[in-house]
């Protein structure tokens, strides 16, 4: 476009106005003080659609400062379109340094995964959450589910899991697998695969959850007990994969299935792209890895 932009509409630094940030910051503090409890907050419209990470973006925008280094992942990958878009948003509105390196990030915003590289004290993991209420699919009414949390009445959830066992011989929930926090609140871990649930338990990092459309923020302070719901005769177990990553040969990581042709050819590769690249840099090679290792990922400087 050659036309000069007019001053018809201007936006604040870091997009959110200061009053909104204060409101979200207060909700975050309450969330940390009551682990697993969903704090209602007056979620704002964001410049990306509801359901595309507005909760996570509002949380990140409220905590981020000039010293922070931000990593954004979607499905474990730094290069999926929505992760690219959110990272670009923060580069633009907050002029913040970004990275793909899990270890170097101070804030990691994520959708559907927890990085494979163990998180450390001082890091903050911000989850994008679509439906924060773990009881919502059992009881659609907020008025009812609020009562259940208040009374610590979680029988319905156990009935659901038990019905799974009766019908399928196992608990058929594979992602967004409910957890109990510090023996009190049942919490939705966001749609991460249950593979990631154990990483939440007593993590040294602070975990913040933002649900923009549903207007809820909740939190897990570091070193908080997070236990996946199960039964004595049907203990919780995570997914296992029969083969290692085809690119970096990693085992005990979560894998994506990639379809190679229309004759049933497929392979499994790390869903955490940073983890996979780091391993290949270190010389690990899977059976389908290219000959040369990938170029070193460089930290992108602030503009």
């Amino acid at each position, binding site marked *: 476009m050659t036309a000069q932009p007019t001053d018809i509409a201007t936006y604040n630094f870091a997009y959110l106005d200061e009053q909104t940030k204060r409101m979200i910051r207060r909700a975050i503090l309450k969330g940390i003080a009551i682990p697993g409890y969903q704090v209602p907050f007056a*979620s704002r419209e964001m410049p990306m659609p509801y*359901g595309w990470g507005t909760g996570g973006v509002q949380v990140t925008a409220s905590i981020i400062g000039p010293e922070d280094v931000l990593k954004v992942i979607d499905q474990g990958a730094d290069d999926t379109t929505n992760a690219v878009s959110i990272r670009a948003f923060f580069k633009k509105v907050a002029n913040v340094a970004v990275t793909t390196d899990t270890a170097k990030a101070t804030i990691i915003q994520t959708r559907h995964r927890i990085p494979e590289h163990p998180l450390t004290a001082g890091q903050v993991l911000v989850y994008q959450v679509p439906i924060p209420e773990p009881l919502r699919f059992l009881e659609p*009414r907020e008025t009812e589910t609020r009562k259940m949390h208040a009374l610590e009445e979680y029988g319905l959830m156990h009935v659901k899991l038990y019905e799974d066992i009766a019908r399928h011989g196992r608990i058929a929930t594979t992602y967004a697998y409910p957890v109990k926090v510090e023996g009190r609140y049942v919490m939705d871990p966001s749609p991460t695969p249950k593979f990631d649930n154990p990483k939440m338990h007593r993590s040294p990092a602070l975990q913040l959850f933002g649900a923009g459309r549903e207007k809820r923020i909740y939190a897990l302070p570091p070193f908080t007990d997070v236990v996946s719901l199960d039964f004595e005769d049907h203990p919780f177990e995570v997914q296992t994969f029969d083969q290692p990553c085809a690119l970096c040969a990693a085992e005990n990581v979560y894998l994506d299935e990639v379809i190679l042709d229309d004759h049933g050819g497929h392979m499994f590769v790390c*869903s955490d792209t940073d983890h996979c690249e780091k391993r290949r840099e270190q010389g690990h090679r899977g059976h389908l890895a290219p000959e040369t290792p990938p170029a070193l990922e460089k930290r992108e400087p602030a503009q």
Partner: protein
Amino acid sequence: MYVAVKGGEAAIANAHALLADRRRGDRSVPALRLDQIVEQLALGVDRVMSEGSLYDRELAALAIVQARGDMIEAIFLVRAYRTTLPRFGYTRAIDTGAMLVERRVSATYKDLPGGQLLGPTFDYTHRLLDPELAAGGEVAEPLQRASDADAMPRVSAILAREGLIEPDGDMPQDHIPGDITREPLEFPMARDIRLQALSRGDEGFLLALGYSTQRGYARNHPFVGEVRIGEVELELDVPELPFAVPLGSARVTECQMVNQFKGSTKAPPQFTRGYGLVFGQSERKAMAMALCDRALRATEFGEDVVAAAQDEEFVISHSDNVQATGFVEHLKLPHYVDFQAELDLVRRMRAEHDARENAGKAEEKREAAE
């Protein structure tokens, strides 16, 4: 050998460049100016202002052109801008009784003080496409009688004088109106909050719900007491000043629906109200809102909640089209990780099922052979 796909950033940039190109279209056709949209697509602008909850015609016009005419996208653009604006204060409640009326119709009285005023309406136009409009013909100056605001009491006030309609709400004296853009929703909600949510609710959704009440899903015997469209004054109280400061005026559409009510042992027989108020000119939306408002008051009148339109949590949780479109459309985002989890489970269960099946067949064969 396999090389992972990269380059999300470039793909996004190229997609947006293509979007800008398609938005502009054929360069030999003059680009739309905002004033053309404001003047000639005024009802579209009104809808964006109303559901975008921001009274600014120029911004709404910009949003419409930026959204290529996609109204929900335009509403979304306006909302995402309004949310960043600092809040200076709250105006006094507008007085629609003192409206400078351009259109006012009542379905309950043949004539009434102030009269019926048709105004700029599609009503009674024959819906025949107009080739003259396509040719860009000149439009004649309209004739309008000057309206007399003093002589145009609201129909609800006329009924209220006879005590035949319920009072106009009874919030406690110290009640501070809520603000759905500043506080999270909480159910059940007070009527002021509910009306705010309805006023920015999706026109199509409210229209369908209002329609459903007419077809018997929570029928509430509505009569349009009055629909009025016009300009209302906005005034702001400033602590330092002894009088309210006039800020200007806004165009609104108000619908007062008069609904039947049998009365109870305690209350005398009287009509009940359903209320609709939206920015700009939109009778359809204001009327649909009034139908929904009345339906949502079911519990207040001790009526059974039997239909969708009466269910507050259902209606209010799903009336916002910006929320709805976001969550519906988010399904196109990658879900590889969750899908893989489900795929793995289904494969395992399938393998177990097949194993059982085969074992069963082997057993049958063995028995047949014996």
